[in-house]
């Protein structure tokens, strides 16, 4: 059984994530509680979605640095459209389409013009972050359609045989918001669905096969007749869509969104980290979508666990950094075991 798990590409990170989870479960009594799991989900689900997009680009040996900026911009596009009177669901679709157009531009400059994707998407990062500041005038906005309504209800209680009626306030979110991020498991469900679909596309379709082929050997792939440029462009488009959709989910969950440029860059780092920690190579040719989910979960558990252990806020990032390095060192060793166990 252990050998089967280890023979998977994402096997070693599964083992490491389990180790980290067990450590926190044993050392922080509140880690394995419902309330804790509820707070863990928002930490990792969006990064899993972002990681999926990034995996498709990184398999090509490219990188999308603009994914955090896309993530930041999408809710503002959504807001502008909703302000203009467009219904909410079409707003979401249009905002994601705009982000796909961003990916199309990234892909065009990388695959057709031939600028390195690092430079293309770095330029796009600043452009989009600037555009977000322009659109928002640097002011946070509430997400239309995610407004909570509170209602006062009368609830009957039975106390010591006496029946009394108390008034209670119930907060209610619209179905639209519940589906798109506000509901407790909404982001998790979206993340799992997107990861499963992404992994199926990568492993079981020509789309995925050609993506791996281009990432492994561009020249050989083009000589075999694979349309290299098309393959590259569509991965960037996919990555843009992932960035935009995750951004909208998070904004709807929070109910409002701030034009936080520095925050967007942190999102970018975590998205790439999720992909890389999950087992996708920075050099291309090999990657796993499920790995991105586990990588994101790993980061989420680390974040959540350190808080629950009561680590001083000032030490939080310090420990997070050390923990990542330590865990990845273990990961490398587990990988060596895995290679050794492979039949071949």
């Amino acid at each position, binding site marked *: 059984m252990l050998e089967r798990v280890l023979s998977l590409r994402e096997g070693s990170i599964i083992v490491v994530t389990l180790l980290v989870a067990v450590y926190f479960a044993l050392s922080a009594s509140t880690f394995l509680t419902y309330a804790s799991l509820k707070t863990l989900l928002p930490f990792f689900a969006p990064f899993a979605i972002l990681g999926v997009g990034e995996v498709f680009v990184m398999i090509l040996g490219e990188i999308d640095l603009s994914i955090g900026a896309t993530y930041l911009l999408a809710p503002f596009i959504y807001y502008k459209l909703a302000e203009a009177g467009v219904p909410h669901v079409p707003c979401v679709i249009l905002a994601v389409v705009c982000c796909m157009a961003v990916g199309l531009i990234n892909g065009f400059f990388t695959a057709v013009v031939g600028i390195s994707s690092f430079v293309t998407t770095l330029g796009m990062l600043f452009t989009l972050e600037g555009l977000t500041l322009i659109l928002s005038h640097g002011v946070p906005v509430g997400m239309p359609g995610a407004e909570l309504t509170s209602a006062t209800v009368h609830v009957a209680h039975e106390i010591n045989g006496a029946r009394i009626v108390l008034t209670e306030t119930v907060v209610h979110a619209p179905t639209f918001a519940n589906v798109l991020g506000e509901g407790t498991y909404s982001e998790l469900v979206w993340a799992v669905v997107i990861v499963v679909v992404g992994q*199926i596309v990568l492993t*079981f*379709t*020509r789309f995925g*096969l*050609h993506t*791996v*082929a281009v*990432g*492994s*050997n561009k*020249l*050989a*792939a*083009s*000589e*075999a*007749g*694979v*349309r290299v440029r098309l393959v590259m462009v569509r991965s960037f488009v996919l990555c843009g869509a992932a960035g935009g959709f995750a951004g909208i989910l998070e904004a709807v969950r929070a109910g409002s969104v701030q034009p936080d440029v520095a925050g967007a860059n942190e999102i970018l780092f975590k998205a790439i980290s999720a992909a890389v920690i999950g087992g996708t190579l920075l050099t291309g*040719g*090999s990657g796993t979508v499920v790995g991105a989910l586990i990588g994101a979960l790993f980061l989420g558990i680390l974040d959540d666990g350190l808080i629950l252990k009561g680590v001083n806020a000032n030490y939080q990032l310090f420990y997070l950094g050390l923990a990542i390095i330590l865990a990845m060192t273990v990961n490398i060793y587990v990988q060596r075991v895995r290679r050794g166990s492979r039949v*071949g």
Partner: protein
Amino acid sequence: MGPSSAPDDVLRVEHIAKRFGPVTALRDVNLHLRKGEVLGLLGDNGAGKSTLIKIICGFQKQDSGEMFLQGKPYAPKSVDDARAQGIETVYQDLALIDELSVYHNLFLRREKVHHPLPFLANREMKRDARTALDQIGINIPRIDVSVARLSGGQRQAIAVARTVYSDADIILLDEPLAAMGAKEGAQILDLVARLKAEGKVSIIMILHNYVHVLEACDRVSMIQDGVIALDKPTAETSVEELTEIVVNEYRRARLEEHGGAASAPPAGAGGAPADGA
């Protein structure tokens, strides 16, 4: 020029020229290929053999000149386009993807998929890959491992199998025996002989070894300096004649170099005699 082109040529190449910046790869190449024929293409390194192959297979475009396929003008827009018109190529760098399995490499760009959901039909591809490799007669123990784990000869066999499997009319082989041991090389030449016996495909093969050319080819064309310097049926030529041409080419090249040196003698140039090749 050798034998003139006949109406039953499946492929004719006329006055093809190709430059890469200051380098002229092909100056004026004329070539023809008859149905069922195996044509050996010879030439020094950098003579332009691979460039010619890449133009015919649609990977690169010539600067000038025309090609005709089955008598009709032929100007492939891409490798896919050339393939659709029946021209398949085995490249010198093999065009194999290390990360992919043997059977995925065999089927790259021609993958079989299920219906209605277009998932890869891996089981079917594995089975057909096994059949194709068995036909070639080269033993690949496992076809679900990545091609990175195979020997040079096995990789070449897969590249050739991919082409043979495709029902092409014309197959271009760019140094099919490079990276091969004698035994594996003999198997590839056997395969070419078998294809020739079937008479369905016509083959252009780049080779370096004159013995292989005389053994496996009907006709030989030699590129020198961007033009076809010799075009003869193999029955009418010999290793000696082919060697002679190459030796003469070397002599000429050395003379040119010597002439250039004489006009501007380098500091240390004493009396080092040019050794006869």
